[in-house]
């Protein structure tokens, strides 16, 4: 049923692919990855069925709520835009009556008809379709034509058998389908920057896993839960995220015992990178990603980055490196992680903050300080004792055993 008591009910969503239209022979992989991701994001709607073509993806709603589906669809990367659509047979009478119904259902004052024919044997050319449909609307409603800035834009796409009638184009998340660009490991701290870095990485089609350094009892369980909440938020963009929790206390205490206080943060970051690289190797991640931004704190000056970066060979990607704090905050609000990030819990970087951290550490001094103590067994222990947690979008932590309460 498309029509209930003269109300328009959308039975399709038409999805337009993003940048991948430019990607030559990889296109096939991109499209099937996108379809896989879309299905994954919409798995709570079992009634949906899908049809992919070379330039469009059609989602048949089969009675599911179009708006609920659209909320989730808007988070899938690789989509430039999508529209709610009504499918009618490619017959001029049907097209005209449905377009008229759509116009009557709207409270706009001006409109424009935009037709396209992919089926060139259709008896009318696009402009003739426009005129025929618009004539009906002009005659039977109060709407006026405005081709420059219409309040209601009715798009008509004529294919061989079916025609799609659409209004309002909803922008998609853009970017590439997550997974086409391999996998990276994000250092997720619980702050504002690293979730944004995760988002930007996924947007370029790179799937992520996360690594988090916990130093109980200096850091609390709540801090760890916060990190998992953040992971659950950004998991919406790729379906599911693996979070590796590193027990960091022993190593951190050793650093503070054996190294100069001003270099503590530098050495600590070097240890974190070492651990991250080993996890990358184990998990087939091709890069380390973090939320560092130049000059934000002592360990994020170029000199610090240079000294710290020396310990790893794989690329370290810093998506927010040149962004202002306010730009990062805007993005954090956009992806809805800001309110979680600003909950005030100690993380392992804020607890042992030295009074005067060095802003221009040298490699020579860092290496010398590290040579006073054999950190290797502790680093290896960290990697071995990692606890891995699977986080899904909207994961309600430890609610499962209490399902009867809700």
């Amino acid at each position, binding site marked *: 049923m498309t029509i209930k008591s003269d109300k328009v009910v959308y039975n399709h969503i038409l999805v337009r692919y993003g940048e991948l239209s430019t990607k030559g022979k990889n296109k096939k992989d991109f499209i099937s990855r996108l379809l896989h991701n879309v299905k994954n994001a919409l798995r709570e709607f079992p009634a949906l069925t899908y049809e992919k073509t070379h330039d469009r993806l059609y989602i048949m709603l089969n009675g599911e709520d179009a708006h609920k589906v659209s909320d989730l669809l808007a988070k899938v990367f690789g989509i430039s835009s999508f529209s709610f659509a009504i499918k009618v047979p490619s017959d001029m009478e049907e097209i005209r009556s449905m377009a008229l119904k759509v116009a009557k259902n709207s409270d706009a004052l001006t409109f424009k008809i935009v037709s396209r024919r992919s089926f060139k044997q259709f008896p009318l050319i696009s402009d003739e379709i426009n005129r025929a449909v618009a004539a009906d609307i002009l005659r039977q409603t109060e709407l006026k034509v405005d081709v420059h800035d219409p309040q209601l834009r009715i798009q008509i796409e004529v294919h061989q058998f079916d025609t799609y009638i659409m209004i309002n184009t909803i922008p998609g998340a853009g970017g590439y389908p997550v997974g086409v660009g391999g996998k990276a490991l994000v250092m997720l701290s619980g702050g504002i920057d690293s979730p944004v870095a995760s988002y930007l990485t996924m947007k370029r089609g790179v799937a992520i896993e996360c690594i988090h350094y916990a130093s109980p009892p200096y850091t*609390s*369980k*709540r801090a760890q839960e916060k990190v998992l909440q953040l992971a659950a938020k950004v998991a919406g963009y790729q379906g599911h995220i693996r979070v590796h929790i590193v027990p960091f206390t022993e190593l951190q205490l050793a650093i503070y015992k054996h190294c100069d206080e001003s270099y503590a943060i530098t050495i600590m970051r070097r240890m974190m990178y070492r651990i991250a690289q080993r996890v990358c190797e184990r998990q087939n991640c091709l890069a380390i990603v973090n939320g560092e931004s130049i000059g934000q704190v002592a360990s994020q000056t170029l000199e610090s980055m240079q000294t710290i970066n020396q310990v790893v060979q794989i690329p370290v990607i810093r998506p927010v490196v040149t962004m202002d704090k306010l730009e990062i905050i805007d993005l954090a609000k956009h992806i809805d992680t800001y309110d979680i990030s600003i909950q005030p819990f100690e993380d392992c970087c804020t607890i042992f903050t030295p009074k005067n951290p060095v802003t221009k550490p040298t490699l020579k001094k860092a290496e010398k300080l590290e040579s006073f103590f054999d950190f290797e067994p502790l680093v290896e222990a960290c990697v071995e004792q990692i606890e891995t947690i699977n986080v899904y979008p909207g994961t*309600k*932590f430890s609610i499962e055993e*209490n399902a*009867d*309460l*809700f």
Partner: protein
Amino acid sequence: MVYLDYAATTPLNDEVLNAYTKLLKQYYGNSDSLHALGREAAKLMETAREQISDLLSVRKEEVLFTSCASEANNLALKGYAFHYQKRGKHLITTAVEHSSVLHTMEQLEKQFGFEVSYLPVNEQGKVELESLKQALRKDTILVSCMLVNNESGAINDISVLADYVHAFSRAAFHMDGVQGLGKVELPLDAVDMATFSAHKIYGLKGSGLLIKKQHVELLPLISAGQQEQGLRGGTSNSPVNTVFAKTLRLALEKQAEHTAYVKGLNDYLREELAKLDHIIINSDPSGSPYILNFSCLKIGSEIMLNALDERGFCVSAQSTCASHTKAHSYVLSAMGLGEVRATHAVRVSLSHLTKQSELTSFIEALKEIIHDYQIR
């Protein structure tokens, strides 16, 4: 005993009771404590908040827990009026609101120097847009109107009223939705604040909600800790708040089914009452099927209630929260139904738990009472 007073309160759902018992016994931690027990309680309460926000299609931060709907109404009206009083000191409400709105307005008027306009209602018990248009002024800061009237069952066109207010003034719109929750569609998109209560939908007493859209700021009435974004201090009643989510889910899941059933009961009752002499139905058929108000012109409310009570029927004459005053329905008066109907009113409120046989025996009892005790 035949209970026909579900608009006053409802019996507790067993599933809700079980969940509540478990919460009380296992999750007694203070939801603001940092230890495991406190964290558990907080997590459950926040999950509940999220579920409620999903069910009502609002944001999580827009759900505030209160101790009852009256508190929520007070927080909405006073909290808003105090915060925005520099913008203007004019408030609008209707003549037929619940006492928690009317008395709050009265207090704002008498003690705090606000000016309040009370909108009239038509014979169906509904507020007309025209009267709102006339009352709305440049210095109006808040309009409060109930969704479903608790005595007549009349349903207001909240979207129409609120859209007008937003289009032609800077005022905010508050909706008392207590009698509408789980019964009629909630126009939450259109309003800035809304009030709900758990015990009207088979949940716990002492449990209310204020939905406050993010752009609205309030002055807290209970100044204390960080709970509820600092807008409602005091240790969170986390077991009660948590179980609201389940109460709401159960009510909304069955809303369509229950409403259709109750509509049948309502039709039956109307038909039977129409056959009796001296009885006039006060509730318009367009209203909520859950409430049916009628007047027996020969027997005053109080006598009727006593007589019904003796025979084991629980009904009300007017709003339960004003039942200790003289039996005179200000709602029916405002509807212009006259002194006699206002003082002779009986409110029957129905539920999916009501059986048709109960209504049949209720009609029989009415017949007996009218026969035995009619005065005029």
